């Protein structure tokens, strides 16, 4: 049986876009928000390869700013293309979660 990490693949991208949509944010804050939403069983660094790819695909833009705590911080914002991708993700997720719920709840209520 695959663990949560396997299930997260493909979903995390959409979640990251949704959090960035809330407002400009940097890596550590992003990981902390994911955790606060209940994503506990993942390595925080997993977000960086995804963010790099999103930048390459022009879904997010990044700005480097000085930080008082140490090295410069990279703040992410959503692009128009990223917004479209997020809208499509929400649609796909609603369809998928409805289908999965139907399967799990077939023939009555399950525990």
């Amino acid at each position, binding site marked *: 049986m695959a663990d949560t990490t396997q299930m997260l693949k493909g979903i995390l991208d959409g979640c990251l876009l949704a959090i960035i949509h809330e407002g400009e944010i*940097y890596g550590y804050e992003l990981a902390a928000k994911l955790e606060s939403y209940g994503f506990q069983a993942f*390595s*925080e660094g*997993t977000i*960086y390869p995804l963010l790099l790819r999103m930048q390459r695909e022009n879904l997010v833009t990044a700005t*480097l700013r000085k930080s008082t705590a*140490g090295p410069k911080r990279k703040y992410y914002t959503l692009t128009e293309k990223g917004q479209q991708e997020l809208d499509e993700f929400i649609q796909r997720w609603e369809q998928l979660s409805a289908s999965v719920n139907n399967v799990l709840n077939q023939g009555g209520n399950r525990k």
Partner: protein
Amino acid sequence: MTLSKKSEQFLIELRMYLMSRGKNDQEINEITEELEDHLLQAEAAGKDTSHIIGKSPKDYMKSIGDSMKTDFRQMAGLIPMTILLLAAYFSFGPAIEGNFLLSSIILWIAIGGGVIGMIAYGILLFKVIPKFFHSKWGYVITIMTSFLVTGLGVVLLLWSKGQEAEAVFVASPLENNLIVAVCILIFIGSAVYSKSWISIVIPIFLAIGPLAERFLPQEINENPVYMAWASVGVLTISGLASYFLWKRYKSQ
């Protein structure tokens, strides 16, 4: 806030891994700074490095590398830089002695040594040194390599001197000094590029013999008493340097 040794080690290994995979320097700086910031905050919050990079740093480095595009233009610059560096290693000693010349044998040594050197230097810089960066073995490997390179250089030099081959170029005193200056610039450039002291440390060791050959009078240079004192001096300096490096390592 300071990073733990484990995190610092990981960032160095990541930088070297990405460099060896031909990723863009600016992008490497950005991702390592971003991860440094993340690790600093996570450690301050009491989290372990593995909570950020996972159980396998190697897999994590690979996933970062796969998400970055390869900078072929930059890679094209790396190859000439390596060739220049090796040419500088071969030219530095003879030019300091004031005896720089090119013969067919030297050119063949340069080509053969160049290929072997490129492979060995690449493995040392990108694979071996990052793994031992914060351990005493890092210093041991660097010093041993320096001695090995110096020794091999001297052996090759002595061997080539004994061979009879027609010189195709003999440098004048001014040209010898210019070659030394160009070599120093190449060593500094390489150190800045690789962000490593190794291309400065090795030439310092390489220069000791030729400098003695050029500036010490023949009778002093071949006097056993002076040779013994020089050996004691080199050993004392090496011992003191090792002691201070060890103290620095312990205090970190």
